[in-house]
């Protein structure tokens, strides 16, 4: 494998990990606040559909992004009302959101566009174009650093940069601000926050809504960045992979970056080498495609050291003495 191939694989990995990273950080906010969210998938799907539809109708990827965020935020609000307001079961609420998004996107898509659940293909300003960073072309001839900068760092859509910027930003919010301190506390021991006179409900709602916004960006990236339109079930389990990555990351922002990169890389390798020839054995493409899921199972089975979830995760807060 030569250097150029390596760069191409890494470049592809960056594109593929972006929605995972956004969804993973989305889940991080929610779960760090003590609200489990298996509805990442549904929120992304809803956002993908909303962004593709609006981008097609208006011809603006940016308006599509806003619509995507609004769609995912609406779903997040639903999750919040059910699991925080009414203290419902967070898993059931999440499952409901996944089903709702899965059905609603196809139903609305068929009703509006009549293409069997797809939206029409997007082109031009209705998609997020690739941004060429300054000096990308002039630096290209420089050995090693040139191709890395020009191919790997430069040439992505703005949403990719947003996703990567979210990592240090999330870290800073979580560990350097009052909001972050309270958010982490409410996921560990909501009673400590309540007795300190801070509203548990408001904090958790804020976290769940941030989760919705990030899922919205992730969904919009899927439909208007990496692809050119919405296709039925286009999230293809990415919300669940993001959840696995969150466990892998032990609910930490920098860990999320590493975990989602690993998954992105696996997918990129599978795409590049459908039948990976290791000399003594040929790995079939099915196996490569299945690898992220296998790895998820391995992670969930606890083979990567103990990942301790936020202590109050999954528990609706009921005030008691």
């Amino acid at each position, binding site marked *: 494998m030569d250097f150029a191939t390596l760069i191409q694989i890494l470049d592809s990995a960056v594109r593929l990990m972006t929605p995972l990273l956004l969804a993973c950080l989305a889940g991080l906010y929610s779960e760090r606040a003590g609200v489990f969210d298996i509805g990442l998938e549904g929120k992304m799907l809803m956002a993908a559909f909303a962004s593709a539809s609006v981008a097609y109708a208006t011809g603006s990827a940016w308006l599509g992004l806003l619509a995507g965020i609004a769609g995912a935020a609406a779903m997040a609000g639903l999750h919040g009302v059910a699991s925080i307001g009414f203290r419902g079961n967070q898993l059931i609420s999440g499952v409901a959101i996944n089903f709702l998004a899965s059905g609603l996107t196809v139903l609305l898509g068929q009703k509006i566009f009549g293409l069997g659940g797809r939206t029409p293909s997007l082109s031009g300003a209705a998609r997020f174009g690739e941004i060429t960073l300054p000096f990308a072309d002039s630096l290209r001839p420089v050995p090693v650093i040139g191709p890395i900068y020009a191919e790997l760092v430069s040439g992505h859509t703005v949403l990719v940069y947003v996703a990567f910027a979210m990592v240090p930003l999330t870290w800073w919010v979580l560990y350097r601000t009052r909001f972050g301190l309270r958010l982490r506390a409410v996921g560990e021991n909501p009673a400590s926050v309540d*007795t*300190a006179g801070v509203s548990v409900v408001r904090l958790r709602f804020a976290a769940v809504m941030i989760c919705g916004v990030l899922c919205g960006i992730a969904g919009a990236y899927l439909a208007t960045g990496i692809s050119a339109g919405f296709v039925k079930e286009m999230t293809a389990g990415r919300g669940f992979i993001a959840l696995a990555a969150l466990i892998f990351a032990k609910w930490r922002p920098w860990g999320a970056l590493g975990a989602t990169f690993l998954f992105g890389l696996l997918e990129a390798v599978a795409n590049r080498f459908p039948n990976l020839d290791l000399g003594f054995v040929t790995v079939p493409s099915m196996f490569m495609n299945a690898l992220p899921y296998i790895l998820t199972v391995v992670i969930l089975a606890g083979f990567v050291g103990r990942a301790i979830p936020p202590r109050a995760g999954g528990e609706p807060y009921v005030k008691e003495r």
Partner: protein
Amino acid sequence: MTATPAPAIELRGISKAFGPVQANRDIDLVVPRGTIHGIIGENGAGKSTLMSILYGFYRPDAGEILVGGKPVAIADSQAAIRAGIGMVFQHFKLVQNFTVLENVVLGAEDGRLLRPSLSRARGELKRLAAEYGLQVDPDALVEELSVGHQQRVEILKALYRRADILILDEPTGVLTPAEADHLFRILRGLKDEGKTIILITHKLREIMEITDNVSVMRRGEMVASVRTAETGPAELAELMVGRKVLLRVDKPPARPGAPVLEVRGLRMVDAEGVERLRGIDLEIRAGEILGIAGVAGNGQTQLLEILGGFPEAGARLQGEIRLGGRPLPLQGPGADGRARRRAGIGHVPEDRQAEGLIMDFTAWENIAFGYHHAPEFQRGPLMDNAAIRADAMGKIQRFDIRPPNPDLAAKSFSGGNQQKIVVAREVERNPELLLIGQPTRGVDIGAIEFIHKRIVALRDAGRAVLLVSVELDEIMALSDRILVMFDGHIMGERLPAEATTGDLGCLMAGVEPARADAGGGAG
């Protein structure tokens, strides 16, 4: 206006009900500034509810709260903090994987960014540590601290919020004696600095040791407020437990036979490392009711749970239990509730709603629970529901359980009838040994009489009964012998004919009666 300064806290006519349960009824309380005020009462007497009202966790149904002479509305904890009230809960409200500093700052940050708050808190903690002897490493993670240090963090949290009035709810329940002594030194220091402290406890010794005044609560009411110097443990114990209308149970003299249950050197250390039982020895003979008296929380619950086969998780046990001469395992396989029942131990647990019944299941199902493996309830591999129902109907009639409808959920019955369901189930199996905890708690007079008669009938049939009750009258009326438990061991043994409530009250307070008399003071 009076010359004396306004009291730190004054409550007037506070009432609070949870559904049908009146947790607080028309409570008045005056706590003078700069004093340590004890509030004493049994579990469930309403102490914690009252303090939760003061801290804004609950809103009272009626009544008025005055802080420093001014009426205040305490709608939430933030309002309580603003009024200068700090609370140290029995179960700490700390974030385990945060540092001490983060825990102290949480909710009382100076601005949106953490750094300035944390550095100010660091200086403040150093000052408080020096002033009150509250040394804690500010950068230690709370989960790595001992329970005593975690409690200090809770006190620091309150002081950091400039609390003038500090409420501590059962603060010594989880502490070792040395830690408790240190806590009391800290509390005296705080008092000397002019802080007002309210100490909630059910331990008489602590009240006598540290408080200036003491208020006694019983069943949601404030039954007395006195100066600690003018009372004594015996009087307080009597006030806590209360004297009801005299109970009288007609029973023939006991004719004890061979020993049924023998307990030797039973010790139990709970998951938090607190020793709950400190070497219990007792023996119950066939045809005998052994009553265990004591203020709730002195190890009676643990004793019943161990004998019944369900000690709390993580407990370490030691000692020996024999039933009819055969040793019974303390823990592990063969020591569960089912094995105990098979060995011939019936158990009416103290908390019937949590441990005696499944509230959403029907009466007939509940009457079979624990014995549903019995051969007469099986038909091949299936349960014979018809047989179980028929059996339940019989018990419902014999125990006059009302309404006599086996298909009603257990939760639809009144407290007395719920208890009858449990008693019917356990007593009619005619066990070698019946364990019965708080048999008449929350039960109406008619059902009390009935349940007492059945316990005596079981004894007269030559069975052994271990009765645990916090109702002294019940113990005196039913028992053939009385043991008094205090702080995990047996304080003394009395025969009901020669015991007086004052005598038993002293033992319940952990005081040998002779010593209390010699000490005088008891009014």
